């Protein structure tokens, strides 16, 4: 009973080994990339192409003109201008890769990311794509224009999302960072168009994003904010003089862990966000901006509340943060009459939260000024007066108490002495009487 299966296994083992060796060899030869020419005759004979895509690969790359079936040379096909894919919903997707861009990227191999395109024909290619190149075999007329392939994706977004998943292979840390980002949360609410890695880090030209480009990047989706930013004191300085001190989008919103501006955390940390630069004496010195803005904010009701709301037990987050008064993206210097905090606009700005604020009300805020002899002499005088008054009274308390203690000590001593004297007197008396 047991012999038959054993002998069958024995007979099939060499066959399995051969298939395994063949697969291993194919895999190795493919991953060796475009620079390796195929040398196995048998394979070459088996896969002799009936039609090849007419490409002329650059000779300096050492790429052979042999069919992509054999070489695994992506550029054999994808450097052909106009090569296009069509998704199931009819959307077109350029399959063309500018080789010069590709060479600029920090990544070195297509198949690092294009996991489903490791082999050729690509794993997911629908069978009708063969006819694009093998048109003679299918008896179709010769195509006019660059080849167009049917893609196995619902729409072009599906391609981006599939490729994006590959980023996690190496960039696990960044993936962890984006876990709680507002973009990821938007994605989890079935919004497939929420940005993923490849939306910001353009595929095939992946580079470290510079600040000018970084500011523009978000405008792909957040155009209104970008326009407002461009008119702000920060955006204008970036555009006009490529100022590296001014914040771009991600300095406030975060790059990967993008926090939604309506999130509690964003509001709670707002003063730290702005204070990062505005309390930095070295940076502010260049522009003659006071660094007291943070300390004076934290010293006043709004700031102290905001700071305290970050501490345990706080629930309400309603107090004004920096951007509530100064504007969000359209921040202007306070001496600009257009600014939300200019003298003419201040009452209106206060009224955003305090609808009944009168014309007197803005004066309740000292405009980030410390109580000092230069900025607020009246308050400084009052503060000094109060300090002197209170200190004098407390000093009087201390002097009186010290003197009183001295008196009480003297009294106790006198009483003890009197007692002693009385005792000796009594003893004397007793002695005398005896």
């Amino acid at each position, binding site marked *: 009973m047991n012999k038959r299966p054993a002998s069958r296994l024995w007979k099939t083992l060499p066959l399995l080994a051969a298939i395994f060796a063949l697969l291993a060899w194919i895999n190795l030869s493919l991953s060796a990339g475009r620079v390796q020419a195929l040398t196995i005759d048998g394979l070459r004979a088996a896969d002799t192409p009936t039609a090849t895509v007419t490409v002329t690969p650059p000779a300096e790359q050492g790429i052979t003109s042999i069919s992509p079936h054999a070489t695994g040379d992506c550029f054999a096909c994808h450097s052909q201008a106009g090569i296009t894919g069509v998704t199931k919903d009819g959307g077109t997707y350029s399959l063309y890769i500018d080789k010069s861009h590709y060479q600029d990227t920090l990544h070195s191999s297509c198949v690092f990311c294009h996991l489903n395109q490791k082999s050729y024909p690509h794993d997911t290619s629908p069978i009708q794509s063969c006819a694009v190149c093998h048109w003679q075999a299918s008896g179709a007329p010769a195509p006019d224009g660059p080849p167009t392939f049917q893609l196995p994706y619902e729409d072009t977004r599906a391609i981006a999302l599939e490729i994006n998943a590959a980023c996690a292979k190496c960039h696990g840390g960044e993936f962890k960072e984006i876990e709680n980002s507002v973009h990821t949360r938007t994605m989890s609410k079935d919004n497939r168009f929420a940005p993923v890695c490849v939306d910001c880090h353009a595929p095939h030209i992946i580079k470290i994003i510079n600040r000018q480009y970084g500011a523009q990047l978000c405008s792909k989706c957040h155009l209104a904010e970008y326009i407002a930013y461009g008119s702000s004191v920060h955006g204008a300085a970036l555009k006009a003089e490529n100022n590296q001190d001014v914040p771009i989008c991600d300095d406030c919103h975060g790059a990967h862990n993008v926090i939604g501006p309506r999130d509690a955390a964003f509001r709670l940390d707002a003063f730290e966000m702005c204070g990062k630069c505005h309390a930095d004496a070295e940076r502010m010195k260049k522009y003659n901006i006071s660094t007291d803005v943070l300390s004076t904010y934290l010293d*006043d*009701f709004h700031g*102290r*509340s905001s*700071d*305290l*709301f970050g*501490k*345990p*037990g*706080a*629930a*309400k987050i309603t107090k004004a943060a920096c951007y509530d008064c100064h504007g969000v993206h359209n921040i202007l210097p306070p001496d600009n009459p257009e600014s939300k905090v200019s003298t003419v606009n201040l009452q209106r700005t206060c009224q955003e939260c*305090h609808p*009944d*604020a*009168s014309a*007197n*009300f*803005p*004066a*309740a*805020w*000292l405009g980030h000024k410390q*109580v000092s002899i230069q900025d*607020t002499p*009246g*308050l400084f005088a*009052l*503060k000094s007066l*109060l*300090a002197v*008054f*209170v200190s004098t*009274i*407390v000093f009087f*308390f*201390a002097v*009186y*108490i010290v*003197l*009183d203690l001295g*008196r*009480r000590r003297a009294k106790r001593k006198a009483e003890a002495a009197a007692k002693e004297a009385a005792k000796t007197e009594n003893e004397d008396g007793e002695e005398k009487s005896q």
Partner: protein
Amino acid sequence: MTTRLKPQPAPRGPKPYTFQITWRDAVDATMRLRTDHKGRRYVSRFSTATAIEHFVFLLAFAVLAITGFAQTFYDTVLGGQVLVLFGGIDSLRQAHHAFAFILGMAVIYHLLNYANEAVVYRRAGGMWFDGTDWSLLFRFGRSKKPARFGRYTFPEKISYWVMALAILALGVTGLAQTFPILVSEFLPGIVVPISRLTHFWMAVLLAAAVLIWHVYDVLVRKVNLSILTGNMSIKDMEEDHPLELQYLEAAAGALHSPDWPLVLEIAREEDAPTAEEKVEAKEEAAAPQEKAEPARPAEGPEKDAASKDSVKG
């Protein structure tokens, strides 16, 4: 409940104090001089209502000071602990406002009570500074004997008026900070930062007045719990409130006088009695009935010469 109506401050000589009293005051004085079950004499110094009022002030002060300074020094370890204890800044502020309201109500009660005592019963005013308040002279060595006080001692008057000033200022500036929109409708906006500044310094003043001055006076110098128990021993009365004791004994002694109102005169002694004098005074105090005799009915303080020192006789 001093029944002194028209005090005659006489800082320049040992002129007597003059009290115009009614029969009701004499009854009151009689009822306040008490003896406990062991036969020890004591004086009922404060009514239950006053004790409760003081307790409300004490409680409100404690909560307001803790919640207030926790907001000022929120970035210290202790401040953070208090914040956690109160469940965060929102509930801490609610507690601060709630107890400020309670304190405000207590202040209003206090003022109404004062008005009642002064206008209806005509027996308020023990807190005003008068000729008895020269205890500093003794402390600075300018006087040989300690000053003799009536209803309230000099330290008590100081703590009352400093606390009154601080609480009034804290109340006004606190309201200005709670309702800045309303305030800035009628007053310039700078009132709000002024209030912030003043509120802090007045809080420091009040805390110092309570924790340094008042605590020294009633707990360190001598454990004086009369505001809680309402009662004070005769020994402590003789030491701290000799004039009030003299008045009470004189007024109680005059209970059976046929004519009302009476004018009592209490000697304002420059020097405290010596040990011998004290013994004398005690002997005399044992017979208040006799002592009260010299206090004769009079039409006014003009008849000073006719009156006598009720204690020394």
